[in-house]
């Protein structure tokens, strides 16, 4: 008996390999948007590595945190590289998350039978938001201090227990070294492990029901004599090799940003990150990182504290029910022109809100912000009715695919 046979008899891995790679049949008509998923996996691994290496030099105390982060930049060998990998990696993860989610919305990947895949995925996005927030408080710059103060004070709006929750989160009445201790613990253990777990379940639930495709038709409905979908190809080697190519292109982009535009014109790394925390001096204008700013713009568009927070929470929660808001039998917006236009307006509006959220809180931005908030909410409210009555084209019986 060879070692291989001996090992295979005892190992679950060959079976898992077949189920999830070599004999997982994915539709053959994936387009460029389908790179985002595998790239996100790559980025999470890279964040783990760079995060471990910056954590090795980080000191979570109010006195030393800021200096230790500057120590990473200037004293640690290649510390600047690890730091920029970790900081720019966050923004690129959100770029990929938005592409990944937009693709799911365009092609109806959230629809039955993939509702749970969508919900797990959207929860992962929220977990990434929490992870990013805890992460940018850790350097204890003035931005960290005030962003931490503002975000944790949102909990004060919870009825009855708000004050207690806020104190619990901060570990005191205000931001302090104790806050850094628990934020670091959350950042490197709980939230990170939650993200990893959610990703595992996202993939397992996806592989149970099978991948959607740009045409939004079920490839499992059309199986060949071998029992495999006619329009499906094994993930390995076809998509694993394709994703490997994607990794190469993506790493060139990632490298170019790290080496030539690490702060990305202060979008990925804000200027206010380079002054230490000062409880006596608020920032010139408190703006969130770009990936959170659409929700922030909605928050401040309502001239009422609790109203703004409620709108923001509603905006964050709405996508959870998306699978049940869409009532059209056709999944892909390739064959639903009205929904496609609505979605494109929704995407543009989202980025306009992101831009507005980065602007100083001046009255001239109030009207566009309110309009943006209305368009955001209107999409979800109109979708059940539009999807019910909109004209559709008939999707093809087989996926559209041109061999190359």
């Amino acid at each position: 008996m060879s070692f291989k046979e001996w090992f295979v008899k005892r190992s679950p891995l060959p079976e898992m390999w077949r189920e999830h790679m070599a004999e997982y049949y994915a539709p053959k008509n994936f387009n460029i948007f389908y790179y985002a998923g595998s790239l996100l996996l790559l980025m999470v691994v890279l964040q783990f590595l760079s995060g471990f290496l910056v954590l090795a030099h980080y000191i979570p105390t109010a006195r030393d945190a800021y200096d230790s982060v500057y120590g990473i930049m200037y004293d640690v060998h290649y510390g600047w590289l690890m730091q920029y990998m970790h900081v720019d990696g966050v923004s690129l993860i959100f770029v990929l998350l938005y592409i990944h989610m937009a693709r799911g919305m365009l092609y109806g990947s959230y629809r039955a039978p993939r509702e749970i895949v969508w919900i797990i995925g959207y929860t992962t996005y929220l977990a990434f938001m929490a992870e990013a927030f805890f992460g940018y408080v850790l350097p204890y710059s003035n931005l960290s201090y005030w962003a931490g103060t503002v975000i944790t004070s949102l909990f004060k709006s919870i009825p009855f227990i708000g004050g207690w929750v806020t104190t619990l989160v901060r570990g005191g009445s205000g931001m302090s070294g104790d806050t850094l201790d628990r934020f670091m613990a959350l950042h490197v253990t709980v939230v990170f492990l939650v993200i990893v777990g959610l990703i595992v379940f996202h993939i397992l639930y996806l592989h149970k029901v099978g991948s959607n495709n740009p045409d939004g038709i079920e490839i499992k409905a059309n199986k060949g004599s071998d029992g495999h979908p006619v329009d499906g190809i094994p993930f390995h080697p076809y998509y694993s090799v394709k994703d490997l190519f994607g990794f190469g292109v993506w790493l060139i982009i990632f490298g170019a940003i790290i080496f030539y535009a690490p702060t990305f014109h202060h979008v990925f790394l804000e200027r206010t990150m380079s002054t230490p925390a000062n409880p006596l001096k608020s920032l010139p204008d408190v703006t969130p990182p770009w990936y959170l700013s659409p929700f922030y713009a909605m928050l401040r568009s309502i001239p009422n504290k609790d109203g703004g927070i409620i709108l923001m929470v509603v905006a964050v929660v709405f996508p959870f029910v998306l699978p049940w808001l869409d009532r059209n039998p056709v999944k892909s917006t390739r064959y639903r022109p009205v929904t496609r236009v609505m979605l494109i307006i929704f995407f543009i509006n989202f980025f306009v809100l992101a831009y507005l959220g980065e602007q100083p809180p001046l009255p001239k931005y109030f009207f566009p912000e309110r309009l943006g908030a209305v368009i955001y909410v209107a999409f979800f409210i109109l979708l059940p009715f539009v999807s019910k009555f909109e004209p559709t084209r008939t999707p093809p019986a087989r996926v559209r695919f041109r061999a190359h």
Partner: protein
Amino acid sequence: MSDETQDNKHAPNVTRRRFLTALVTVSGAAVAGTIAVPMVKSLDPTAAAAALATTTIDLSPIEPGMQMVALWQEKPVIVVNRTPEMLTTLDETEQKGLLKDPNCNVPQQPPYCKNKYRSRVPEWYVGIKICNHLCCIPHYRPKKGSVAPWWLGGFHCPCHGSMYDLSARVIKGSPAPHNMAVPEYDIDVEKKSVVVTKMYPLAHLC
């Protein structure tokens, strides 16, 4: 197009595949290696830790026969003001053949300290007070007979009993392999000060 050319068109070109697989493997390994180097390097001592901070030791409070320990880069540096009697014991230990390396051939000290005194100025011994065996801090035992009946004065390690003479040269029968390390330093006898500048790179601490 005949069936044969059709088949040729679709038959896998094994050589080409092997070449492409090799290309991807090699370039993938190159990328992984390129990023692995800075990643591992980032765990090296930081520039701040490696920055060689110097320590200045004032010699004026050290009476003849006394010693003082100062902290330099998280390490104890001992300065001993040796009396002429103490210096004669150095010859005695050599003559009795007690020493593993009496001539200091192992570079445990900078070249300017390669003498029986293991120092720049015979009276003043400056060295790192770390046992060469397993990093313990030896005790200073200057009195004759204080460790053993034949003891002429020196250093005795409390952990595993390594013994050194008053120049911190290791005595035979000790588990320690080498003499204790001497850092690089400057001494100004007139101004009564020693500046420990850096570790002698060839010296082996423990």
